[in-house]
Every structure is written in C-alpha cells, then in structure tokens.
C-alpha cells in the first residue's frame, strides 16, 4: 500500500504516465502473442523486457520523480513488468510445448521393423524334456542321480538280475567295448555302452543308505539303425524308490502324479503285466491319451492321430524292484522294498510335441531345435 500523496509535485515525467505504461505493457503482450516461434519470442523478449526496452527505461525514470510520486509510479511500472514477464513465461511454455509435441511427431519410427540382429539360440528339446520330467520328481523330494555311459556289464546286466544266459540279455542289442588283447585275454572287456539308465539304480543303491528316492536321466545305446522311429543313441529317464513298506499302489500313484504334472489334472495311467528281469512284479505302463482322453476308441468319427485311436499311449516299463537286485546292491530285501520305472524321452517328445521323425532329433538342424526355446 502506497503512502497518501500529501505534497503533490507538479514535475511530471511523460514516460511514467499511467496511460503510457499501459501502452508499453500492451505492446509487449501483443508482441509476445504474435511471436510464432521460440526465436521470434526471444526477439520480442529482448525488445520488451531487455535493458533498453521501454518499460526498463521507464523504470529508470522513477528516480527522477519527487519522493512522494515515486511509490505510485514504481507500483505502476512494477505491475506492468510483472504482467509482461508472466505473459512471456506463458508464451514461452506454450511454444516449448508446441515444439516438444512436434519433435515427438517427427521422431516417430516404424515399430514393425524386424530385429534379428543376433538370432535366438535354443536348447535341445531332449535336454529340456529330461529336465522337465526330472523337475516333477525333484519337487516331490527325489534327487537326480547320474552315471557313466560306458558301463561295466555287471552294472548294466548282472546286478539287475540279467544272468549270463538270461534270454532277456539277448533282447538288448548291446554295443560291446573292446578289451585288452594279450596272452591272457581274448579281448573281452566286460564293458558295454549302457543299454538303459537302470545301472544308475544299482550305483545309487550301492552309494546310499535307504531310503533312496532318485531319478536318473541319461543317454543310452542300442545297436539299432537310425530311422524314423529308432535311433542307436537315445535318452531315458529312470526312477527308483527304495524304502520300508513301498507297494505297487505307491508305484501307480507316482506314475499318475507324473502324467498329471506333465499332461493335465485329468490324466491317469494303466498298468499291464509284463516281464523285466530287474522288477517283480513287472508292468508295462500306458498313459491315457492326453489328446482324445480315450474318446476316439470305437469312434470312427473322431479318429485320434496321437494314440492311433487306441485311447492309451505306451510309456515304458515299471515294477517292484526285484529283491535279487536289492540283495546284489546291498539292500536288505527283508526290510526294504522298492519300485522303479523308466521310459524313453524321444518317444515322449514325439507324442507330446508332434515330432514325426526321430532323425530330426539327432541331426542337429537348427530349424528343428530353435522353436523349442529354453524350456518345454
């Protein structure tokens, strides 16, 4: 609030007249409004707020006024300069916003451009399939056990109740390893490429005290020629549980749990009697066809390619560990019982992922492997 104008000084300064200051202010505002670019605004800014601008010059004149008039004039000039600066700021912000918006439009790109600078890699689906199955059991408390691929015959056959003349020993088409040749040897080595992952069972029982709960994924070998459904080098996963009081019902439940984990909650398995030297009783295990759920059986209108309208898919072999195997592996069969099962990973990959030719799995063609990514 200014002091009352008690002693009016007649000396008048033209530039400080109220109407003059209003004019200067309005000119400045008009110039800012007219500025259509940040550069034009900069010019207007210099012209209307710079040191030589009319308002700045008018401001300097205030000192020439008699004391009682100074306050009044100062107030008028100050108000005008305030309005000018505010308008300048507003216009500045407006023009900057316009510029920023324009830049964003100008910087637009075609986001549909492809980007395959370094094509994605992938792990082999047999590897990830084995991991996936193993993980089902690891989550139940099982551990993963491994063993050598070149194996002693004793582990591969004898310890598993395949006697030297057992007919079943002939069923397996075994790669034999050359042994030392010399005066006291006929070149037999007692060493083979393991024909199944079951020797890992024997190794595990010899290594650990029961209870034993392990899964054994791995590569195995048989002398089959490579074709669409056979390969001499393939993969299996084996499960072994040895504990007090284990039953075939436990085996069945474990199998059911596995197929439910891998194929869905409404899945189940079926056991059919069979013969394996290392299990007794033994069974062949089938799983319900996860595609048709058995509805294609006797239903020619709904044929199922996955199970050939059989309703069931053959998975592999299983059974209660033969007490003779327990004995050979240092486990007391009077106290402990066990169950085991094993199946081929290639086959599971074929029916779970519609792979039609086993050769695709062994040739290493990147076009086959890439779509499987990191996990399956």
């Amino acid at each position, binding site marked *: 609030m200014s002091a009352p104008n008690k002693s009016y000084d007649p000396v008048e300064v033209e530039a400080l007249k109220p109407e003059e200051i209003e004019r200067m202010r309005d000119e400045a505002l008009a110039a800012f409004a007219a500025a259509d670019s940040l550069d034009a605004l900069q010019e207007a800014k210099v012209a209307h707020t710079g040191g030589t601008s009319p308002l700045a010059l008018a401001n300097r004149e205030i000192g020439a006024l008699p004391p009682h008039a100074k306050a009044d004039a100062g107030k008028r000039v100050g108000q005008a300069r305030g309005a000018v600066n505010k308008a300048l700021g507003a216009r500045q912000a407006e023009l900057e916003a316009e510029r920023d918006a324009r830049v964003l439009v100008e910087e637009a790109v075609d986001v549909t451009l492809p980007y395959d600078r370094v094509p994605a890699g992938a792990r082999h689906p047999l590897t990830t399939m084995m991991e996936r199955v193993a993980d089902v059991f690891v989550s139940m408390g099982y551990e993963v056990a491994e063993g050598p691929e070149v194996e*002693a015959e*004793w582990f591969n056959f004898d310890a598993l109740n395949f006697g030297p003349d057992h007919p079943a020993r002939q069923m397996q088409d075994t*790669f034999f390893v050359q042994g030392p040749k010399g005066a006291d040897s006929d070149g037999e080595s007692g*060493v083979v490429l393991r024909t199944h992952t079951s020797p890992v069972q024997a190794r595990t029982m010899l290594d650990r005290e029961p*209870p034993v709960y392990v899964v054994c994924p791995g590569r195995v070998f048989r002398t089959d020629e490579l074709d669409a459904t056979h390969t001499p080098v393939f993969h299996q996963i084996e499960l072994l549980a040895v504990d007090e009081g284990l*039953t075939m019902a436990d085996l069945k439940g474990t199998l059911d749990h596995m197929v439910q984990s891998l194929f869905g909650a409404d899945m189940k398995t079926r056991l059919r009697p069979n013969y394996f030297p290392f299990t007794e*009783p033994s069974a062949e295990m089938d799983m319900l066809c996860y595609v048709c759920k058995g509805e294609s059986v006797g239903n020619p209108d709904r044929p199922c390619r996955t199970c050939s309208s059989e309703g069931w898919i053959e998975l592999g072999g299983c059974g209660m560990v033969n007490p003779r195997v327990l004995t050979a592996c240092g486990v007391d069969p009077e106290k402990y019982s066990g169950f085991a099962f094993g199946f081929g990973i290639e086959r599971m990959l074929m029916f779970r992922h519609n792979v039609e030719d086993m050769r695709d799995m*062994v040739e290493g*063609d990147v076009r086959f492997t890439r779509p499987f990514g990191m996990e399956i």
Partner: protein
Amino acid sequence: MRVPLSWLREYVDLPATETGRDVQAKLISAGLEVETVEHLGADLKGPLVVGQVLTIEELDGFKKPIRFCTVDVGQANGTGEPQEIVCGARNFAVGDKVVVVLPGAVLPGGFAISARKTYGRNSHGMICSSDELGMGDDGTKGIIVLPPEHEVGTDAVELLELVDEVLDIAVTPDRGYCLSLRGVAREAAIAYGLPLRDPALLDVPAPNAFGYPVKVSEPAGCDRFTARTVTGLAPEARSPIWLRRRLQKAGMRPISLAVDVTNYVMLELGQPLHAYDRSRIQGAIGVRRAEPGEKLTTLDGVVRTLDPEDLLITDDRGAIGLAGVMGGANTEIADHGHAAGASTEVVIEAAHFDPISVARTARRHRLASEASKRFERGVDPLAASAAAQRTVDLLVLLAGGTAEAGVTEVIAPPAPHTITIPANHPDKVAGVDYGRETVVRRLQEIGCDVYGQDELIVTVPSWRPDLTDPNDLAEEVIRLEGYENLPSTLPKPPAGLGLTDRQRLHRRIGRALAGAGYVEALNYPFIGEDVFDQLGLAADDPKRRVVKLVNPLSDEEPALRTTLLPGLLAALRRNDGRGSHDLALFETGLVFQPQDELRVAGRLPVDRRPTDEEIASLTAALPVQPLHAAVVLAGAREQAGWWGKGRPADWADAIEAARTLAREAGAELLVRQGQYGPWHPGRCAELAVVIDGAEQVIGYAGELHPGVLKALHLPARSSAMELDLDALERASAGVPKGPHISSFPVATQDVALVVDQSVPAAGVEAALREGAGELLESIRLFDVFTGEQIGEGKKSLAYALRFRADDRTLTVDEASAARDTAVALAAERTGAVLRGA
C-alpha cells in the same frame, strides 16, 4: 505265438459271442501281450465250392501255358452244367478235386470275381490257389488239389476253415508255457473263470524195457528222454486239411505228415518233438556233449563245427542232432516225394533239455528254432510222455501206423520247486488287502499246490519254471486280481536336497549359451580315427587314444569320441548344406578316454553286496568320461539389417563362449596365446584355470585352421571352442561374495600405451591392474590402434581406468599417481610407452 481262436475254443468253452478283440482284452489284462488280432476271411464272400475237373484244353499261342477247363461244381452254379474256367496253373489233372470260386464272390483283399473274357475264352470263375484264399504258404505254389473224398459242390469256406481269428501273442521270456495252445488256454480259462480241458491229460503206458534203446550220458543236460516207435506208416498218407489249416494259421508250413504231426503237438502242448526215420538210425540213441572238432550237417543243410559244450543226440555213427535245437540231415524223415521212398517207421523223441545249454548252442550257431525258443524259456518236463503219446496217437490215426508196445523213458527229474511265503505277502507287495483265501485260490488256479495258514507252502507247477521267488507268486496273484484294480497312493519321500551345484551349473550353461544365440545339438559319440588326421592332431596326441567298439554300427566309425568337435562340425556342415549359413551351435557331452592300462571288468557276485574293492575294480576298467562343452560358429554372428552392418562370427566369439562358461561356473579363466591341432596357429587361445593352486590347460578356442576347414568341407573362417567342463567346475571359486559398494565419487583416467604387436593385451592389462593398486575399481580396454603414427610393428592400447576409495573422495593427484604407477609397471613388464609421451 499265433493262436487261432477256433483252436483255442477246443480247450475252453469261451462264450460263442466272444470276438477275438474280447479275448485279446482279457488276455492283455492277464499279462499276455496280444499284439494283434488277425481276422482271416473277414471280407471273404462265396460262392466258393469243391469242384471236379472234367476236361482240360491246352491253349497255345500265349506267353505262358493256359488251360481252358470245364469243372463240375454240382448245383452250386444254379444250373448243374459244367463251369467253364480259364486257368494259368498246371498242377492238376482231369478228375482232380479243386476249389472253385464262382462269379459274384469276393476273395480276400476285396478281389471281386465276375465272368469275363480272357485268352479268347469266357471264364466263369477261378480255380483257387491257397495264396488267393489267404491261407498262407502250403509249399505247393499252385492251386489246391483236394483229397478225392470231398463231395462236389461242398462249401469250401467251411471245409478249408477260411474264416477265423488269430491272436498274435508276443510271449515274454518268463512265460515259456504260453508258447503252446495249452498254456494260452490255461490263461484264457482263468481269465474267464471257466474250466480247462488240459490236452496233456492223456493215458500213457508205463515205460518198459523193450522200447528203442536210449543212453543219456549227460543227465545234467537232459533230465528226461522219452522214445516211442510207430511202424507201418502209409507212404502216401498226407496231413488232413484241418491239421494243415491249424499249422498255417499258427504260422507254420505243412511239410509231411510225420513232421506236421510233431509240429502240431508242439504247438498244442509246448513240447518240441523230433521224429527220426528208424531205418536211418544205427544203434542206440545217445545224449552227450560234442567232441572237439566234431561236425554235423543240420536239417537246414549247413555243416556245423560243434563246440564241446554243445549237447548232441547221437547214434552209433555219431551226431544225429543238436539237442533241442535242430535235427541232423542224416536221419531226416522222408516224405512221399523222396527218392528213397517215404519213411514208414519213425522213432519219436520227446525230451527235456537244459535251457541254458540249449540257449548257448542256439546262440553259438545262430540257429534259433521253434524248439530252441521253447527250451530256452522252459518246457514242462512232465508233458514229455503225453506229447509222445499224442504224436503216436495222431500217426496211428492219420497214417494208419501201429504203435509199438515198447516205451522208453529215461528220467532224472528235478524235485518239484517249493516256495514258502507269508499268506499276506502279495498284499504287502501290492498295497491291497486281498486276504488269504484269494491268494490261495489264485495260486491254485495257475496250478500250484498250496498248504498252510499264515505261512503258505507253495509247490509250483512243472510248466512254470519261472516261479522261483516269493515276488513271482505275488505277481501271479496281483495280475489275476487285475493290475487295473490297484489303488493309486503316493509315498512320502524324505525332504530332498534338490539339484546339486553341478546339475544346476549344467542347466545354467545351457541357458547361457542359448541366451547368447547358440543352438544345442546332440551328436552321436561315434567317430572314425581318420578324423584326427583331418583335425591336424599330432601323431602322439593323447586324443588319438580311443575306446573301440567290438560291434560298431559302421566300420567307418568304430570308436568313441575323445573330442566333441567331429560331431559338432558335422552338424555345422549339415546345417550349412541345408541352407542355414549363419550358425552358432553348442554341445555338452561326455568324451571317453581309455585308462592307461586296459583292464577287464570282472563279473562280480550278485548274491551279496560287492566289496568296495570289487566295485573299485570295475571303475578301474571303465574309461575316464569327463564332460566337455564345445561351440562352433560360422557365417554372421550379427546380421546386417536396417540398423546397419552385420558382423561375421570370428575367433573372439569362440573365446567369449569360453568366458561365458567360466562366468557361469564362477571360475577365473586364463586366456593366452596358444597353438593346437585344429586351430589357426595365430588365432588360437589356450584356456586354463587354476585348480588347487595348480594351473591346468582345459581347452582351446579360436578360428579353425584353414587346412582343417578344407579337409572337413566347412565354411571359411569357422571358429570353435572346446573345454573340459568338469575341470572348469573344479576351478569354481564357490559362492560369490557380496562386494562392498563405495558411495564416494569415481575418478577416471585414460591411458594409451604403445607396445610391440607381439605383446599380449592380457599381459599389459595385468600389469596395469597390479600397478594401479587397490584404488583401481575397474579397467577396460576401449581401443586398439595400429598405423603410421604408432610405428611399424607397434600397437596402441587405450585403457579407461576408474579409481575409487572406500572412505574419501580421491583427489586428482591421488588418481594420477595411481595411474602413473600402473603405467610404470606396464612399461617395466611389457615395454609399454605412454602414447604421446
């Protein structure tokens, strides 16, 4: 084992409505692997009748002889007139009874018959061969000529038993008894809860002293030998249609009456039999082991040199048969077509041989016969007499023979096998409460004698030598109660430890390499040794020592890999050849290194746990099998595109793959200039780690040698890396320690050092790092420059050094002083000169 349903019904009164599929389902559930059900004559449609050939006119002028016949088919053609038929076969004559198919009929395979003009004549039907009727091979290769007693016009579909179902059963090694109709019928009877008419229950005369003389000198190999003699066989007698048809349906070829009868009885009872022409045996029949160098010509015409372990049937001259495997040619039964005249007197052998001895002989001579297949899996020793009797009966019935009164039986039968089990043993194995009554009933059904209450004393039947252990009996009970009725329960394993560090590492490595753009390939481990020359390995390179296979799939690749490169490079070449040129592949897998001294892995006992020493002896006989990781690269590592230029894969990518693995393993990798076989001598890095204080070279990486690329037909500039993953894992520093993070500002200093071209950058960096002292936070090589300004044979290495202290803001002087000591040490160690200085 092929089982005609019509034949099976002879022993079990299966409900008439049961189809082959129904029986299949029942038998599968009882544990017989019925693989297929073949429906014979399913699409067959008559009229198919017996006809008699009236006239034959030979037609000339065609490429092959053709006959125009008239055949009497009775009223089957509706007129009674002779049927005019053109026929290309010649094995029949006027008056023969044949099988005629008339127009309107459909033969197996959907072959519709109609009247048609052929070879200039009208043909109203066809005279049939067994092939055309889907009967299988009858050995004649011509049309069927029936015995004369069959009436003209008789329906031949029924006469020839053309409609039937045949179950094909894959018999597992423990179920030898199911290689017979008797065994399968027993299973079917149990499955349907029906009585079995056991074909082995025959009246057999007691043995006496005037049968054909037999001397068993090897009772361990032959615990039973029955010999019977039939004389007066009609030379012209042939197997009747029903017998021939049953053999055909079971997959055997009819040969001659005596042979057909022995085969028939074998199929029926499971007992292999042999018929000798008595006129061709000299003296007593003997059973003994072969003598060294002894020879025998078997029925298949092969001269076999015998092994002293082979069990033989002999007469005074020597060997006349391989016991339980195959007879000799010298006592073969002759049929009516034989030059010397048909056999009229036969001696029938029904014996029981040691399964192992038979199996070894069959394997040794690669001679798997119907007989050896059965003996290996176990034949019922108590069925031998019945089988001999059945054979005698059939020969008397069908060939008009006379059974001689002499009955020879040499018997040293083993005691019946008895197993004692707790009555609840099957319950405990299954996890089901069957109860004693059920257990006893099921065991009795399969032929066991069972005594006792809580402890059952079970005597197993003679046809089940596979039942030796308590669990075998448990399986019988459980399978008959139905595997499908087992409940589903989950055991409760103790808490597990999850994956091991090693297993986690292997997964992490796969993910890291795949994340870096590598695609995993799983290659066969088989290699040929010439690949070592192609890889340029030195003559004394340890990788040339390989594990060899006795029976490789291919003689080109008889060994196991000692390096992953051959397989991985083959995959690279395969991909390149298929049009994928920008490639980055990886593999992790075992390689196989023979022990310094080859040993034999012995056969340890199985009746107890082997000792640790015994197990160690096996381990010592196995090759060392370390896990390796390898990558190969070719073409572009980065593609060209709208973003700019691409970048070819090179030596640096291969080395970086090794660094990736080391990072995942938490191991410090030493990379130095190296030279090794397959790699370009100037672009090869030797990869090393420190394990327990000692440095160890674990692999190589870089660009491959141009000569190797040429020899293996690989793309130019392909690169590769291979290292021992097990060794890398052993070099792991273990759990990473959380670093202390200073919040004081960083001071950066750049230096450019000029060194000789030959000075490795790693050495310069190591000197800078050491010289800079503990204030150094990080060092990074950001440029390598060569050119005139630097001078010939020199290079400039530009490093960014970052300094930071834990407790204060560094002054410029402190940072500069640290830089100077770094440069000074680099100068001292590597001759580096500060650029511009």
